[in-house]
């Protein structure tokens, strides 16, 4: 009985830790969405031909902010997956923007834009760390609820592990250098 009790405690602790790490991702993602208006304001001064990209980023940012208002306790897999999907798309568009900056020498050499790129790079590193932390926490919870007798205890109390954070399919495909070196 003592073993079962300690296993139960371990499952609950790890579930709570996973929720905490999930919130940790949100904290970092918020920093990124807070950064976006400043970057867009700088970019719009110079990037007259990227209007559609800038608008797309603005719209995605709005959707991301709206998705955060949906209650998410970490056990609703589809909500968590939707959030990941939106954030991934936003990350793709921001990355495209950063690459497009290279085509605008004036913007590229602007010191404020350089600092903004560095801050953006740092925020992305924080997001990456938060996701890795979340995955480590999820793995720990999965181990606890899949190994006997954890699987029985977890099914009795209704604890499921949320999905791992995974990159989307576009980021998995290898880069074709020919597309760029034309």
């Amino acid at each position, binding site marked *: 009985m003592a073993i079962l009790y300690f296993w139960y405690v371990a499952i609950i602790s790890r579930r709570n830790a996973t929720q905490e*790490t999930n919130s*940790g991702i949100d904290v970092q993602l918020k*920093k990124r969405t*807070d*950064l976006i*208006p*400043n970057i867009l304001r700088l970019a719009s001064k110079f990037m007259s031909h990227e209007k559609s990209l800038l608008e797309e980023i603005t719209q995605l940012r709005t959707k991301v902010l709206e998705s955060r208002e949906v209650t998410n306790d970490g056990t609703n897999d589809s909500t968590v997956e939707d959030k990941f999907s939106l954030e991934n798309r936003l990350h793709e568009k921001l990355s495209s923007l950063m690459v497009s900056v290279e085509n605008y020498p004036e913007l590229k050499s602007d*010191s*404020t834009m*350089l*600092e*903004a790129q*560095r*801050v953006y*790079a*740092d925020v992305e*590193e*924080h997001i*990456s*760390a*938060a996701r*890795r*932390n979340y995955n*480590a926490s999820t793995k720990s919870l999965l181990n606890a609820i899949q190994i006997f007798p954890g699987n029985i205890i977890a099914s009795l109390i209704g604890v499921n592990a949320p999905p791992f954070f995974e990159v989307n399919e576009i980021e998995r495909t290898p880069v074709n250098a020919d597309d760029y070196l034309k």
Partner: protein
Amino acid sequence: MKLKGLDFTQKSKSASSLSPEARKEFNRELESELADLEAFRLEKLEVVNQQNELIKKYAKSAVVPLIVLELGLQIFSSSYSLLSGHGVPFFICAGAAIFIWKMKPYNLYHQQYKEKVLPILLRSLGDFSYQIDGSLDVATLESFKIYPKHQHRKSEDYFKGAIQDIGLEFCELHLENSGDKSRVTVFQGAAILLEMPFTFLTHTVVSKNKERKAFSNFRNSNLQTIELEDLDFEEKFTARTLDPLAARYLLSPAMMKRLMELEEKYNTLGFGAQLRCEFKDNKALFLISYIGNFFESPKLTVSAYDNDNLVLIQDQLRLIVSVIEQLKLDYLVARKLAYKTFDLTSE
């Protein structure tokens, strides 16, 4: 004599760049010092030759009386002998005195070589000051978990400077404990202390797996072990931290690879390197143990102008100073400092 092999052009990106005039000046300064060193070397070589002559001259004349004395002791008093407990301390003291006297010219030349050559080679890499027998501040070292417990400490070849807002201090350390019959080496190698212009988010320690007891200062600490994703890194190292999230920010997959490459770079110099590092407050300490000694002078019988030795020393200095570039800590500094000029919250 021309100095070949020394390359003042291929410096690390983070070191100050040298103009052609500065390179000429360094070559001129180094040649002048080497000329003095060569004269000093020849003087010490002459002393060694004189020592050898003296030993040849008096060894023969000392051996016969000693044999006669021993035979006399054996004949007239069997309880006394030069080879027993009575004579051994005498021979040990005599042997030690002769050894010290014999090594003196070599040690003087070695010391002179380092004091002349290292400051010049260091200046080519940045604004560094050198002390042959200096050391990192002991109190600072003792505040790090990876600094092993020891009873005896020797240090040498201390230098201090800065590269792109990051302070760098280095010394070679030899830490020992007293064993049953002799001293046991706990750590021998390089200690590199970096002072960053920002504070690390958390206290993180990277130590070797199955760490020896001397390095296991983690009991009674709040540091928790974290599992990282790089399997090669996990095979070699154990990461401990107060905050897993902040530690993962610092120990990104790229950083883990760079740490392994840094350890491997020390191995390529043939020294069997083992890396340990710790990040705390605004400081990072790297302890790299290896077999051997950095910054060796050439033998007394080899010219002070020996290019191979100069190039080796320059490579060793570059390896140490390039730790910042190798780990891309300058990029980390740039990102951290960018927050000061780019306000994240302004709309």
